[in-house]
């Protein structure tokens, strides 16, 4: 238990929140409504989240962030569908049309969680796969390189996501 | 109509397993085989859910859940091994 900051009510709130999410997964999986069963599972979820929760801080939630998060999920899903149609178009042709290369882009995001979500989103979007992360530079394998310079590639690959993520994690 | 379409879908997923297995046998390096294994695992999750649907047993879904949680563990282990970590 790394309770370096000591006990605060905010940390207790985070622990209870994580436990509620865990119980939510359990109920979604088993559809149980038995009271004793839920009591035991709730106790176990509290123990597990108390063991693993380290941070005592909760990000400030504003309506704008919530709206941008929902818009981001929609944008990401559209990007995933587009990337799949792109891959399908390439795969079914007799001679695969590719022009691959590894380019470097730069991000403006500061928060580690935001950077992780950005890297995973890049992996899921059309024709790009994040290979390595060094500091605030991402090395990206691009299946159809149209711009080798850092600024142009940044504009084409990450700008669309950064617009949302800067608000959510800013 | 719907039943027929679901059966066709399961057969297509099975064909995907066969195609990815060919890459597994051919793949020149260990990393190529690991990519093929990753693809096979994800297709197998869908295949297990199809089997659960055809036999109509909810307990079979637990196997798919275990694969959903553990599928990336083997790939990450191989990646760490290649990097010289582990």
């Amino acid at each position, binding site marked *: 238990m790394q309770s370096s900051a000591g006990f605060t009510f905010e940390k207790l709130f985070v622990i209870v929140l994580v436990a509620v999410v865990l119980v939510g997964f359990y109920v979604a999986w088993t559809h149980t409504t038995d009271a004793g069963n839920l009591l035991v599972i709730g106790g176990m979820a509290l123990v597990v989240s108390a063991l693993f929760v380290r941070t005592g801080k909760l990000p400030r939630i504003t309506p704008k962030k919530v709206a941008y998060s929902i818009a981001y999920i929609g944008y990401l899903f559209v990007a995933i569908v587009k990337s799949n149609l792109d891959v399908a178009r390439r795969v079914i042709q007799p001679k695969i049309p590719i022009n691959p290369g*590894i380019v470097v882009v730069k991000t403006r995001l500061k928060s580690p969680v935001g950077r992780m979500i950005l890297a995973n989103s890049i992996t899921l979007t059309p024709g790009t796969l994040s290979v390595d992360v060094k500091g605030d530079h991402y090395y990206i394998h691009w299946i159809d390189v149209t711009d080798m310079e850092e600024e142009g590639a940044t504009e084409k690959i990450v700008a669309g996501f950064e617009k949302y993520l800067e608000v959510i994690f800013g | 109509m719907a039943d027929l379409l679901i059966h066709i879908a399961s057969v297509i997923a099975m064909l995907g397993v066969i195609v990815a297995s060919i890459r597994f046998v051919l793949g020149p390096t260990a990393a190529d085989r690991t*990519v093929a294994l990753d693809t096979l695992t994800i297709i197998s999750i869908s295949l297990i859910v199809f089997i659960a649907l055809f036999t109509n047993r909810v307990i079979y879904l637990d196997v798919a859940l275990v694969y959903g949680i553990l599928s990336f563990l083997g790939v990450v282990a191989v990646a760490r091994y290649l990097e010289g970590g582990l």
Partner: protein
Amino acid sequence: MEVIRLIGAIIALIGSLFLFLGALGVLRMPDLYNRMQAGTKSTTLGSILTLLGIGLYHTEWFWQMLVLIAFAVTTNPISSHSLARAAHWVGIPLTDKTVEDKLAEAEKQERESRREEVAP
């Protein structure tokens, strides 16, 4: 009710088609990184659509399918990214058609600095 089942079956069919295309891409692409592009993207959308379609076809399992989708979507890019990084580090070659490799120079510098740390 019957309409929802039919829609679910069609979605599952499209999803399994994407799964097959992902496997075909893994077979046909010329080098590891391009294979990974096909293998990660197509199978992610394929499993989302297949599981969602089965959830609509067999409505009692809808929530279980959502849990499975959550795990599949979060773990898939992580494994792909870690494997791509390791593969480039051990020097698995890119295909001849490659036009640019910016990471090679950065990794060369990192190897030099590691060697200097180890040497004394």
